[in-house]
């Protein structure tokens, strides 16, 4: 491993002066389970403007299509007895292929895996099937069946409109329909290069096996290590709302704005502590969860984020290799019944204001810091996760993530956290994404700003009823021309 490279964040690399050899992240050991995590440093942000979805479809053709010498069905037949499959993930800056095989089957598996990544088949029937699958993911799985994930993606699209991050990672239906096999081939040729490759491997493989892998992947075009420079997202003025009209039982919210902080930033650890205190993912320890769900029973949970975390309703920990040079701060308010929708939004904004004004108390700080210092151990329980985090650390130019976080936390003070909150977070100049039925009615309620008093099915402590009096009239400065309503059928088209 080239030590020089480990010290320079890949997201800042200037390129020309550095060698373009592929990088390998190796976790050898004696485990009979061999894990592959193969990352190319290109993703949806490299999609052509008229063909959003190309990076996603290219990766699908590799992981779920045939190779030059084998059809998809032939690959499935060979993989099935070994119980292996290759999966792919596409984010803005990274495309990741993962697979785990038992060492008994390593050679047989690898010979096929190698061909899938290095000699794709680009068959027309694979393209037709995977194109349909991608369109159905956007139209049915995301738009039709998952209001929460839809809300999050609508928020990202609103924040990043006109920016290379402006599309969902799977693109848009009209773009996907335009993609040809030539587009796939040329995207592959341009982006699946040695310069862009980080190859992660873990388990009880032999040095000879690794040498073979290195030789094989040296057949990729060298490419150029070009700096990734992304423009800043546009400035947001005031409170902006994008409402998606949909026939649904409840109202889902996502609230957010861009932040400049990534893992490479000195303020990452302070903000990570603030986020854990405010809204640790799927945990009852976060402030939002406690105030909104536990005390008031408004919904199933409420959380906050400083990094992209898709599929959060299905998993308790984030997937690695979603690294980006820019992130957003986000609040995820799970669906609430329409009669309490306005109150819920007010409470969320009230809590955000409170976080910024008051920061963390000494106790809150010590709790969140202590929690994260240990919780970080749980993020890398598998070789697959360990490889993923190591690759992300290479991208950001930081040490091993566990060490980085623990060392940083040990030195951290409450003032560092509260200063970072004031510097990076805000309760204005942000987007609110709403998925709801009768958006016009909700919009009128927002704009009228009348009190939205809460009624509960049980007595509440005075602390809550007193706070509710403030929250029910909490002013969110909506402006009529900054609240837009779009029919769900238009999203991702």
């Amino acid at each position, binding site marked *: 491993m080239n030590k020089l490279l*480990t010290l320079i964040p890949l997201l800042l690399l200037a390129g020309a002066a550095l060698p373009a050899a592929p990088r390998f*992240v190796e976790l050898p*050991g*004696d485990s*009979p*389970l061999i894990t592959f995590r193969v990352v190319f440093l290109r993703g949806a942000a490299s999609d052509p403007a008229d063909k959003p979805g190309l990076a996603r479809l290219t990766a699908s053709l590799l992981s779920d299509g045939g190779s030059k010498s084998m059809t998809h069905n032939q690959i*499935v037949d060979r993989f*099935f*007895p*070994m*119980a*292996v499959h290759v999966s792919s993930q596409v984010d803005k800056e990274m495309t990741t292929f993962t697979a*785990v095989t*038992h060492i008994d089957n390593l050679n047989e598996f690898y010979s096929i895996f190698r061909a899938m990544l290095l000699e794709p088949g680009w068959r027309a*029937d694979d393209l037709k*099937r995977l194109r349909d699958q991608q369109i159905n993911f956007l139209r*049915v799985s995301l738009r039709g*069946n*998952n*209001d*929460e994930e839809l809300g999050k993606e609508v928020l990202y699209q609103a924040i990043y409109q006109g920016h290379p991050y402006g599309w969902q990672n799977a693109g848009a239906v009209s773009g996907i329909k335009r993609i040809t096999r030539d587009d796939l081939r040329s995207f592959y040729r341009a982006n699946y290069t040695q310069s862009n490759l980080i190859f992660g491997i873990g388990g*009880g493989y032999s040095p000879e096996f690794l040498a073979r892998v290195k030789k094989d992947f040296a057949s990729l075009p060298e490419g150029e290590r070009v700096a990734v420079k992304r423009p800043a997202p546009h400035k947001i003025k005031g409170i902006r709302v994008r409402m998606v009209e*949909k*026939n*649904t*039982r*409840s109202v*889902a919210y996502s609230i957010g704005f861009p932040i400049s902080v990534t893992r490479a930033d000195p303020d990452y650890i302070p903000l990570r502590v603030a986020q854990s205190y405010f809204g640790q993912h799927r*945990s*009852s*320890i976060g402030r939002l969860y406690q105030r909104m*769900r*536990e*005390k008031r*029973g*408004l*919904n*199933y949970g409420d959380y906050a984020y400083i990094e992209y975390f898709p599929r959060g*309703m299905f998993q308790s*920990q984030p997937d690695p290799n979603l690294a980006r040079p820019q992130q957003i701060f986000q609040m995820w308010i*799970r669906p*609430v*019944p329409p009669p309490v929708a306005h109150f819920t939004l007010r409470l969320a904004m009230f809590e955000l204001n409170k976080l910024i004004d008051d920061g963390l108390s000494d106790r809150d700080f010590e*709790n969140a810091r202590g*929690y*994260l210092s*240990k919780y970080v*151990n*749980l993020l890398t*329980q*598998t070789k697959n996760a360990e490889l993923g985090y*190591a690759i992300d*650390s*290479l991208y950001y130019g930081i*040490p*091993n993530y566990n*060490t980085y976080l623990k060392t940083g936390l040990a030195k951290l003070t409450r003032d560092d956290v509260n200063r970072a909150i004031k510097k990076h977070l805000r309760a204005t100049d942000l987007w609110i994404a709403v998925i709801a039925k009768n958006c016009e009615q909700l919009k009128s309620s927002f704009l009228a700003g009348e009190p939205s008093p809460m009624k*509960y099915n*049980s007595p509440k402590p005075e602390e809550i009823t007193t706070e509710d009096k403030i929250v029910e009239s909490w002013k969110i400065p909506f402006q009529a021309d900054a609240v837009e309503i779009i029919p*769900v059928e238009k999203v991702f088209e």
Partner: protein
Amino acid sequence: MALMFRIFVPLLLCGALALGASPPRKAFPWDYQMDDFPNGLRLITVPTDFPNVVALQIVVSTGSRNEVEPGKSGFAHFFEHMMFRGTKRFPPEAYDQVIKEMGAARNAYTTDDRTVFYTTFSKEDIGRIIELEADRFQNLDYGEAAFKTEALAVLGEYNKNSQSPTQKLYEVLRDKAFDKHTYKHTTMGFLDDIKEMPHQYEYSRKFFSRWYRPEYTTIIVAGDVEPARVKALVKKYWSGWQHGSYKADIPAEPPQKEPRTAHIDWRSPTLPWIAIAYKGAAYSDTKKDQVTLDITSFLGFDSSSDLYKKLVIDEQKVDILYAYNPDRVDPQLFTVMARVKKQEDVPYVRDQVLAKLKEFRDKPVDPKRLEAVKKHLRYSFALALDNSEAIAATLAPYVALRRTPETINKVYALYDEVTPEDVQRIAAKYFQKDARTIVTLTGGESK
């Protein structure tokens, strides 16, 4: 930068899995210690050699199957929520405080036959966690106000689940297919019952007293632990828990006498779904029915199956196809699910699935294909056991059914014994028209 990482050797895993060129004969390869306490509580400790982390899963053999009274569907799941509402000694805030100090991840889930509470944490905290869990299982204490508030969170969970057409499909399918057995309702429960939950405080106390008892509970501890120490801790904190006396009288499902159908008009655009279900078999590690149905689900409908290749890959009329055959205490449904790209193809897809099931009845399967399925099952099980949490989580459903990891070895040995004739015999027994329920769902866009 530490990219050449510390190497650790999972000795037990290597010993069992790395030998030979075929998957291990003993499916659950880890050594474990099993301890029974006088009050009926059982402890299973699996030292794993994955360093630092410990996974604790407490399995209560109670689920929506135990909801025998009318109007009480969804209660096992609701009660899972209530278990996080604290005790006198550790009210929710104090409980959360301990979790914060330990950096633990914890949650719970409920299904037909079990409720599982799981916590994953650093090894030095084992004593505190076992004490904390013992406290809530024995001394749970919540007021009516907290109860009513939590009922709203459950409704919130229903609301977020309600966006998925497959949730609705399963709800209708079970309601249609079962007449008497409690598998008639899903674990979430009927919406009317969920709305009624806030008024069921008294019943909730009764539910706790019936089912949260040591004889229904097994503690699994997997990870970087000493079994003797874990045993001593469980003895110290859990021995005072009293054995109960309640026994469930779960109504038996009478044989279905005619094919049934139902249709759902989904409120918004979605692709059509079809579910074709048959009354299936109960879990067993001695009788071949359920393992054979399991194998049949792969033979017929896995992505390597002929029908999948035909409908999904070649004809491209279907984009999702699978069979679902869960391991349950009592016979559940063997269900084939297909998402169809065009509504006009739904009858064709239905007929293709029915023809495939008929084929299983009419002729024995290819022995080579059967061997491939058995190999797949062995390897996929081995590949899943790659960390302590996964090991504990894999054990939990089996422990809910038989209270011992040994059932895994027995059931995998049984898979190995399944012959092409068994597949034919079991298909003939279960895939009968009169035991069938078909539910279709269509959305706006495809109409």
